[in-house]
């Protein structure tokens, strides 16, 4: 199982804080997972998840570009951070 999380504006725009996705070979990397989420979520999800400043993290570390996913991974999508 992949645990998928959404934060802040992304969470609000999707109306979803997170969901589980069964791991299989068709979602064995981040881009494939994102394509799956967009397909299943429809136009709204496609639009939100394709925003150019979207940040993606795998197992709580930000990743740049595509990266392999393994069963049990935690994946997060969120906008640029604004802490401090």
């Amino acid at each position, binding site marked *: 199982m992949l645990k998928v999380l959404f*934060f802040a*504006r992304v969470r609000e725009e999707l109306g979803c804080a997170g969901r589980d996705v069964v791991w299989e070979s068709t979602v064995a990397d981040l881009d494939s997972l994102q394509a799956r989420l967009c397909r299943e979520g429809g136009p709204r999800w496609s639009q939100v998840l394709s925003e150019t400043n979207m940040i993606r*993290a795998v197992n709580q570390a*930000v990743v740049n570009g595509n990266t392999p996913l393994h069963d049990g991974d935690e994946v*997060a999508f969120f906008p640029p951070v604004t*802490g401090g």
Partner: protein
Amino acid sequence: MAVRVQVADFEVAELQRELLAGAQDEGAIATFTGYVRGINSGQQVQSMELEHYPGMTERSIEGIVRQACTRWPLLAASVVHRVGLLQAGDQIVWVGTASAHREAAFSACEFIMDYLKNEAPFWKKEQGPQGAHWVDARSQDRDRAARWDNGTPKGRTTK
């Protein structure tokens, strides 16, 4: 080294006391305290909801503090960052660094703050008379954090 992400408010005196915990005769302390702005980008802010990524936030701050400890001769370093609903003027973040060398304490404290603004997964949603809105990331903060990438910052502006 202590990193706390919490809803509760904090007492700066207590945090500072804990930082050197009886070893005050070994070093000096630099601190930074951030407060919720009452006006941000020209808009009035009454309150703010601060969201974070539980788990990743703590890990990412711990990573920043460990980096600072490698980079400067620190005796101790602590970070407290609040989350949840905060009012204008509330304390939001505290960073304390202790070192026998005051330059190390100052540099490490500023380094940690720059990274907190830039890397730690926190998101501010401000609430004012015009309603609520998510705060946009400022490229200025990214630039400040990037200063440290080449080993030392290039110098400071006086404004």
